[in-house]
């Protein structure tokens, strides 16, 4: 009761003693609605709520990193096993990204979910660069988009150039049958002279290499093999089976597309999980840093409020005595 009386007296004198520091501290820490005028003790409530939310974010991002790591392990095995699939085609037909054709179709592979770093933006930038590279008189470039993220980015300025867009590729675990049906769909509905598959090849958990694989239509293959160059010795190969060479080349081109697309989709999915892992890891680290800084602020605020209270009491007491 005596203490309460002293405190009441202290309150009357405190503003005369040191008005400036208190208001300065108050304005920096307390917003208007939270601290109505007249409340003296500085609230640590706000800092505490911020700390709680940052800690929750840190827990969530850590969990997401663990999930991405486990998914990465599973799909990395599949991607590495499928790497032998495209090598025979490149050994036979060579790799001619600089081939000059009229109708280009760029197949952009991206993820459906976000929070995976910059891999989707890289793929979209490269697709747009291919569009620019192949622009000119009677040359056209169309897009086939796999995945929601690239569709969202490409639809903003190239809406009329998107021929086909596919999403929810990873609802069921990726397998060759699904990809070959997709490849069949694309081949039936899109006319092309050259297909460019743009994806991120998985090099390591922290490095993803943007890659483009080129697949030529059978007519272009015939044209290039006749004119010589890297496909020049295609004519020296005997053909077994089928009636004509063009029929075999047609089957070969379609088979090549489905194999290369399968490998590309797996590599991109692996890169997505790896990128998500590193993005979530840096996010949890940032949250940890933020939490450290907030803890320091919290302690400072707490000590300042204790000091203020003590000062008020002591000055009140000394005012009564003397």
């Amino acid at each position, binding site marked *: 009761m005596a203490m309460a009386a002293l405190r009441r007296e202290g309150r009357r004198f405190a503003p005369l003693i040191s008005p400036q520091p208190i208001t300065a501290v108050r304005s920096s820490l307390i917003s208007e609605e939270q601290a109505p005028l007249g409340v003296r003790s500085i609230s640590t409530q706000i800092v505490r709520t911020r700390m709680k939310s940052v800690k929750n974010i840190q827990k969530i991002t850590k969990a997401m990193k663990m999930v991405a790591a486990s998914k990465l392990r599973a799909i990395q095995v*599949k991607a590495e*096993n*499928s*790497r*032998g*699939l*495209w*090598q*025979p085609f*490149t*050994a*036979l037909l*060579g*790799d*001619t*990204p*600089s081939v000059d054709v009229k109708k280009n179709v760029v197949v952009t592979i991206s993820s459906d979910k976000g929070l995976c770093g910059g891999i989707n933006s890289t793929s979209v*930038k*490269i697709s747009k*660069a291919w569009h*620019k*590279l192949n622009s000119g008189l009677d040359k056209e470039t169309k897009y086939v988009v796999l995945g929601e993220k690239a569709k969202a980015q490409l639809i903003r300025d190239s809406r009329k150039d998107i021929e086909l867009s596919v999403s929810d590729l990873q609802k069921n675990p990726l*397998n*060759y049958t699904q990809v070959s049906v997709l490849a069949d769909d694309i081949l039936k509905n899109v006319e092309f002279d050259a297909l460019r598959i*743009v994806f991120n*090849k998985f090099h390591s958990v922290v490095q993803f*290499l*943007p*890659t*483009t*694989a*080129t697949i030529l239509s059978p007519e272009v293959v015939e044209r290039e093999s006749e004119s010589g160059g890297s496909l020049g*010795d295609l004519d*020296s*190969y*005997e*053909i*077994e*089976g*089928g009636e004509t060479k063009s029929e*075999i080349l047609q*089957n*070969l081109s379609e*088979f090549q597309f489905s*194999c*290369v697309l*399968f490998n590309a989709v797996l590599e991109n999915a692996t890169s997505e999980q790896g990128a998500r892992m590193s993005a979530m890891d840096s996010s949890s680290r940032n949250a940890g840093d933020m939490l450290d800084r907030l803890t320091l602020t919290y302690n400072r605020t707490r000590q300042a409020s204790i000091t203020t209270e003590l000062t008020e009491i002591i000055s009140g007491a000394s005012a009564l005595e003397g």
Partner: protein
Amino acid sequence: MFRRATGLLARPLLSSARARARPFSTDLPVAPNADESFVEAWKKVVPNLDPPKTPLSFMKHRPPTPSSIPTKLTVNFVLPYASELSTKEVDMVIIPATTGQLGVLPGHVATIAELKPGVLSVHEGNDVSKYFISSGFAFIHANSYADIIAIEAVPIDRIDPSLVQKGLAEFTQKLSSASTDLEKAEAQIGVELHSALNFALTG
């Protein structure tokens, strides 16, 4: 002072011995790892972005056509979910092409063969491993490298004969009762596959 002299004398001897054991990296054959004209064209149009990598930079090295016929055939047998055999040296392979069984020996002429469902047998010395493969493609290159790409492959001993018989009966019945062209085609494929399986098990 003398210690350093002995060190200096020892080093040239060691390095020459090392050079004989392992070639310098500049002596190895250089594989082209990027299409130069593509990189040039890219840099002109989009100078701020690095050009994307192409499959050429990830290719494993393949030797050029030798002047004399090599003794062994190098086989790469790949499936979408595994590389069954990769650069394995064998004596002969027999592949089920659409025109019939094709035996491939080292020095075989360069061929592109379309495959039908059947038995692939790999002969290495005295052991023969047989796989039943679904269709695919086979490329035989002039440097005695054979690439066989199939969608599915099982070793013959893993196939259950009773299921084969059941499947054959089922698809023959479907073929006779098929009405649309699509159903007929599907039933036809089933019948061909199961009869090939049957032949593989018995023949």
